């Protein structure tokens, strides 16, 4: 039998309450895309290049989206369909939502997905997930335009400094995420092999693109291919 709180969590009224937020995400993406598509050519960005950008992003989104869906399964069993769907399509991310829901349940003396989970504990999880994510959207709503000014100030009008700032943000941010998956060091770790395989392929790909700057497949699919090579090599390590 379905747990009682999950009947509430999966009720029609919960679905109805979650739809507007997801529609807002789609609406914003649509009007931004429309405006950008009209503005690009006026700035000298040809339609063909914009189409290339759209196509490569479309292909690159599929893999990570499936990862999010697979992460959603655990959330689905814990907080029901509507809330999982809204939290992952709207502001949240898999890495953040499940621990938050778990923490709220814990403070109520309950455990997610078990019969000691009460409706009040579920509501506490829903509220904590909501309040916890407000910062992202409020900060982006109020300060995005100021970041442009801040960036220009830091870079002092030098395009090379802007590029260095971008590279630095990428190196620092992603080196930390890679470190999280490779430490403690274990030579048989599937994560480690996935990281190494993708790294080697990406180095080769970058060198290849330098020699063949017009290689379209490398520009459009290179990063996606690298992701799947990493996954495949990591999977072999899983089986050994």
């Amino acid at each position, binding site marked *: 039998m379905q747990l009682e709180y999950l009947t509430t969590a999966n009720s029609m*009224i919960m679905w109805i309450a979650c739809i507007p937020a997801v529609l807002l995400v789609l609406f914003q993406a649509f009007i931004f895309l429309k*405006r950008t598509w009209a503005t690009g050519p006026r700035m000298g960005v040809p339609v063909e290049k914009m189409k290339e950008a759209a196509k490569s992003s479309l292909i690159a989104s599929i893999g990570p989206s499936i990862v999010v869906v697979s992460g959603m399964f655990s959330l689905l069993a814990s907080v029901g369909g509507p809330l999982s769907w809204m939290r992952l399509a709207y502001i949240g991310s898999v890495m953040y939502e499940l621990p938050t829901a778990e923490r709220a349940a814990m403070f109520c003396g309950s455990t997610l997905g078990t019969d000691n989970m009460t409706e009040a504990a579920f509501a506490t999880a829903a509220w904590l997930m909501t309040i916890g994510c407000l910062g992202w959207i409020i900060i*982006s709503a109020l300060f995005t335009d100021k970041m442009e000014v801040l960036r220009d100030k830091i870079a002092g009008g030098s395009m090379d400094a802007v590029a260095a700032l971008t590279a630095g943000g990428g190196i620092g941010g992603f080196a930390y995420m890679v470190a999280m998956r490779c430490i403690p060091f274990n030579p048989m770790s599937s994560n480690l092999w996935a990281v190494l395989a993708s790294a080697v392929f990406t180095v080769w790909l970058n060198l290849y693109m330098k020699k063949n700057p017009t290689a379209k497949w490398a520009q459009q699919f290179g990063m996606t291919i690298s992701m799947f090579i990493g996954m495949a090599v990591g999977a072999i390590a899983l089986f050994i």
Partner: protein
Amino acid sequence: MENKTNVFRGEYLPWIIKTGRATNLLGVLLCFGPCLALALMGVWPNWTALSAAMIVQLPGNLVTQIREPISYFTVLGVPGTYMAFLSGNISNMRVPCASIATKSAGYVEGSDEGTITATIGIAVSTFVSTIILTIGVILGSWLLSILPPIVTQILNLLLPALFSTLLINYGMMRPKLFFIWTPVCFILYYFYIIGTWGYGTLATAAIPIISAFGAMGLGVVGSKKGWF
């Protein structure tokens, strides 16, 4: 052709900022939809537990919420930042898609043209992920029962592979910075997990902040001094 800076800074960005701010503030209200629905059904949270959980949860969140927009801003651009923080899944989807879209069109990340392609990339990835998530949530329980657990384990390897790909891509933009800073991040994280700095919120928050801002600072200083 019109003056591209005028088009971008004079027309496009002001419109994006006005619309982005309005939609994201509306998003703050819509966030409470599920809470409102539960209240209508007479289901309220345990307020004491909620307050206690908030005290533990919010400081860590806030640190991430300040760090992420600043460190990803240069890749996402102004329109992309509004969209990415409304739709979520920033580091695992929006940043990679912005970067891939801009690279595939052959523009420099952070430039005005790069902002156009990044915006297209993020909008497209938002459509794709929302569609896949919606299908996933509908078929979810059924899929859950037929997929062997090894499939999920294998799919989870996509993320480390993606992060490694992005790290190398950014690293190859500034190789010296990469070789100096990546070991620093690894050492910082190693000392964190062996407990050198304790496990408190402060240590948890400090490491990613030092990793990201340290690299950005060193990058800008290095560029100005001509090191890299």
